[in-house]
């Protein structure tokens, strides 16, 4: 770690925060603004809350002599995305009351409330607690919501992975006193330094996922710490530990880049929490605290080396890791419609854009009111109704209808108008973008599985766009980077083929790619693999060759 540099501003805020309290109570009581103080904006995150404002209205409201239309996004902690049907109905009711009637399922298997008024935050969080749910540690420099293979009821192995996920989630929660004091209003609690994280928590956000081959639905290479479950003799025998993934980067900062996680070693399932503890501690103590753009585990690993890390982690665990063993994924994605597995017969419900609101939400609630079994949110922001009743069939089918093959795999992040980081449209742009490239697909290809299309409004990569076979990353209003060649199994990043371009140019490149795919495809070759091969061979030009001097930066 770079110990000589000055800690970043956020490190100071954390250390002064009195265990995440800051001046939150005062900020919440401050009635003349819908905002909280700038420091409290940072601290809110540790409680699962992001301050946002409606960016569509910023200018307009400035002229109206009004402050920005501030509101809050609240993200639930939901390891593996599992909810009881009563919890789902309860959440929907809370959204109606406090969240403008809108829920957003996320690509990390959880649920977000949006448009929450500052004055409603306490009621909302208390309402969640009454449902047995909370939002602790879903943002901020701590371990975030843990992803497990979808869906946890598919087999005993899935169930075992789910249990590990839950154990990890529980083990690394930040100390609850501020949450209980400020939001749950349970009276004053003593201010104590977090016994695990210490006074300044982690240097940066930390994400954990668990996957069970052959389905890489969680995109297990995309996070800081990951466990791949290996089944031997019909028993979850061991876990491959992957570290140092992370897709986020900054445009125009060459020191940043998307990384895939690499194997650190193997452990037994019962060691998962101990491994996680050691990795978190190692990152806590070695991560860069002076430059947030270099603070994630992937940079720490790059700086200190995998060898050194394994050595330190083993020392922290007091146990050795086994060497990594090979494993393979064949696909990723959800089952949609009716499907069966060891856990029974389920229904995979496609949710357009992961957005539940208005009539759609009401109709879904009416169905779920008649469904007693769990509901699981998938890594593609869809829903699986576990052991659903066949009687619900027609109503479920009628909800959003079956998606087109391209839409079924597509994802877009929330982005504008609420996400403060957004550089370009995403959720609102997806439908029109999809329909345009779907017609190009029709015109050139017709047969074969269409590519997975993913858009994010900025390089933070919430919906893992550089792992989409067609990946768009926002760079400015109406401008995107285009990535092709990512593996449909989530184990290879896409390559930049257009940088900061408008739709017209992007579509031209995609059309070119589709035409090449039609003519050059090897038997059964998926689109992403084909593109990768063509990029290797130079048949498909990368961006430098295509538009000399045309792209900025």
């Amino acid at each position, binding site marked *: 770690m770079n110990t000589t540099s000055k800690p970043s501003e956020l490190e100071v805020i954390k250390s002064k925060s009195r265990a995440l309290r800051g001046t939150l109570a005062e900020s919440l009581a401050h009635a003349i603004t819908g905002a909280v103080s700038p420091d409290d904006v940072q601290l809110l995150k540790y409680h699962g809350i992001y301050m946002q404002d409606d960016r569509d209205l910023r200018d307009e409201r400035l002229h*109206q002599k009004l*402050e920005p239309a501030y509101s809050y996004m609240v993200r639930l902690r939901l390891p593996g995305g599992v909810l009881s049907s009563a919890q789902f109905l309860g959440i929907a009711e809370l959204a109606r009351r406090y969240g403008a009637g809108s829920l957003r399922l996320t690509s990390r298997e959880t649920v977000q409330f949006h448009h929450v008024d500052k004055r409603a935050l306490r009621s909302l969080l208390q309402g969640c607690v009454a449902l047995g749910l909370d939002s602790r540690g879903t943002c901020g420099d701590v371990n975030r919501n843990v992803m497990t293979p979808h869906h946890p009821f598919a087999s005993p192995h899935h169930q075992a992975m789910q249990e590990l996920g839950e154990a990890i989630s529980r083990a690394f929660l930040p100390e609850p006193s501020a949450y209980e004091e400020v939001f749950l209003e349970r009276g004053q609690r003593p201010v104590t330094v977090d016994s695990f994280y210490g006074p300044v928590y982690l240097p940066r956000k930390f994400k954990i996922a668990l996957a069970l081959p052959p389905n890489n639905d969680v995109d297990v290479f995309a996070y800081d710490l990951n466990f791949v479950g290996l089944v031997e003799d019909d028993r979850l025998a061991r876990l491959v530990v992957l570290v140092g993934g992370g897709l986020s980067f900054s445009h125009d900062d060459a020191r940043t880049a998307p990384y895939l996680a690499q194997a650190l070693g193997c452990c037994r399932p019962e060691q998962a929490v101990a491994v996680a503890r050691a990795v978190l501690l190692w990152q806590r103590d070695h991560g860069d605290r002076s430059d947030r753009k270099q603070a994630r585990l992937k940079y720490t690993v790059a700086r200190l080396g995998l060898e050194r890390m394994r050595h330190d982690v083993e020392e922290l665990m007091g146990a050795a890791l086994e060497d990594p063993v090979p494993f393979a994924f064949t696909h990723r994605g959800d089952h949609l419609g009716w499907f069966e597995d060891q856990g029974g017969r389920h229904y995979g419900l496609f949710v357009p854009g992961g957005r539940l609101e208005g009539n759609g939400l009401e109709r879904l609630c009416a169905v779920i009111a008649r469904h007693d079994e769990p509901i699981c949110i998938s890594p593609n922001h869809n829903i699986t109704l576990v052991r659903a009743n066949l009687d619900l069939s027609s109503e479920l089918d009628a909800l959003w209808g079956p998606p087109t093959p391209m839409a079924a795999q597509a994802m877009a992040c929330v982005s504008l108008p609420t996400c403060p980081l957004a550089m370009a449209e995403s959720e609102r742009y997806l439908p029109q973008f999809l329909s345009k490239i779907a017609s190009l697909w029709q015109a050139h290809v017709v047969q074969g599985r269409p590519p997975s299309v993913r858009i994010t409004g900025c390089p933070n990569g919430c919906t893992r766009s550089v792992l989409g076979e067609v990946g768009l990353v926002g760079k400015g209003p109406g401008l995107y980077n285009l990535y092709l060649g990512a593996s449909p199994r989530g184990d290879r990043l896409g390559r930049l083929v257009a940088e900061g371009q408008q739709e017209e140019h992007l579509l031209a490149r995609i059309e070119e790619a589709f035409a090449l795919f039609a003519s050059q495809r090897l038997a059964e070759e998926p689109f992403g693999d084909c593109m990768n091969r063509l990029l290797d061979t130079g048949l498909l030009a990368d961006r430098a060759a295509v538009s000399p001097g045309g792209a900025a930066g």
Partner: protein
Amino acid sequence: MSDPEHESSTPLFLSGGRSGMALTPEQRRVVDALCHELTPEQMIWLSGYLAGAAGWSSQSQSPPLLAPQGAADSQSLPVVTILVGSETGKSLLVAQHITRRLEEAGMVAQLRDLAEYNPADLRKVPYAVFCVSTHGEGEPPLPAAELQSYLQASKAPKLDRLQFAVFGLGDRSYPRFCQFARDIDERLVSLGAKPLLQRVECEGDHEQQAENFAQALSARLLAQGQAPRLEVVPGRGAARHLPTAAMAAERLLLSGRGASKAVYHIELQMEQNPTYQPGDTLHIQPCNDPATVAALLAAMGYADSEQVQVNDVTVSLHQALLERCEITTVSQSVAAAYGQMAGVNALTERLEHETLPLEQWDVLEMVRLFPPQRLTPQGLVDLLRPLAPRAYSICSSPSTHEGEVHLLVEQVFTPPGRVGAASGFLATVPVGNMLQGLSWHENPYFHLPQDPTVPILMIATGTGIAPFRSFMAEARETGRRGFHWLVFGERHFRTDFYYQREWQRLLKEKVLSRLDVAFSRDGFGRVHVQDRLMEQAQLVYGQLQEGAHVYVCGGEAMEKEVRQTLLGIIQSQGSLGAEQAQEVWRQIEKSRRYHRDVYGG
């Protein structure tokens, strides 16, 4: 002065010159004689002396040389006491006019504000003239509260030595027109006082009626033998009244997306540099909507070209309805007059037996619901009320927004589908257009306290926040350092927090010391400004004890509840009995520390 050219004729300046200030022949003789006696130096000295003397007299001080003599005389003269009960300053204007006229006629007139007047003195004075308005629902204006309770008390004294006259101001769109003037008049008679004149009930055109009243009054008093005597009694500065024009320089919809009302910030570039004070109002003479006028003409079956008389001037019927007649509102008396004159018996009968939703009607609606049996164009114009100017609180400050006047205007849409005459016009006037017929009006009872350290508590709902923007802009500019506390109520935080950014900045700059808000329809409890006052009862009481001035602006019903709340706070925080609390409150009102400017619901 021995210049031969001027020997035979009177010098120009002595004849009063072109300005027509002629001396009486007797005076001229004295001056001429003097001129012959005096040296040029003496004459120059005298001219200075006379000019000085003129200044003294207008400042109400007797010239020192004459004082002893004059003072002795004025003691023995009967004084006419002019008593004013005014909230928005109109009665005060009338009273000042009357005072001036009586003085010009050589009488001793003394103008007193009822807020500071001890009603028991009515037993001692020979002549009292009441200039009073009516507020609330037929209630006395605030400053007259004490007079009201004094007169209405069962133990009210006989006032049989008092002669009096009443000039009432009111508005016929309220059911109890000039009620307070009537109450005083009747009660004084029943207490034995003798009316000098018939009571005047005045709506609009105050100046002309005040003039008529003053002439009648001085004639009556002179006939009673009130000796002419030159003495001028201090009065307050006259309200500014001159019509002027302005350009609409900016119009912003302040109501955020999804708001349930449309409230506009309007900036006017005044043609003449405005000379208002924070708290004053701008009056706007509206024009009616041409489409509505056309529809009304069609409904009545009249041609545009019909000629009618309005105030002795002949204009086209179309123009009269457009510019001269109130057609957006229908009062009880207008409806009654229409029922009678148009021979609509059904309307007349229903008016007698039930409460019709007149506030939902405009004249067109009335005509459609109750078509006329007979009515001439002249008859229609005569029965309608004159189109009155609308008042808007000025929300700019002269020291900050030079040459400009800002308004905060809610576009009135009641009932749905119709727009208010003035607010509808202001909400749509294109930027760059000229507006005619504006005048600013002094609102002397809604000004900041003279002493810049006195704390102020400002309470507003809706557009009632307007004058407080002016107050705080002024405070910022002048460095006023009292405790400045604003309590504001509206429906929605997100859309109806007018000037939110400005308030935030003023708080940061510590010009505004405290801001409490009550947004009533956000689903966090139906809270109102008075609830915020209750929550801060201790602070409110503390401020009152520190001598705070309280300003309330906005809805009438709100003001009433706020007043009750303040009274309650005084009682509970001061551990006082109801009577004692009332007394404290009376003192606050009496010392003019409670100011209100209220309108509508």
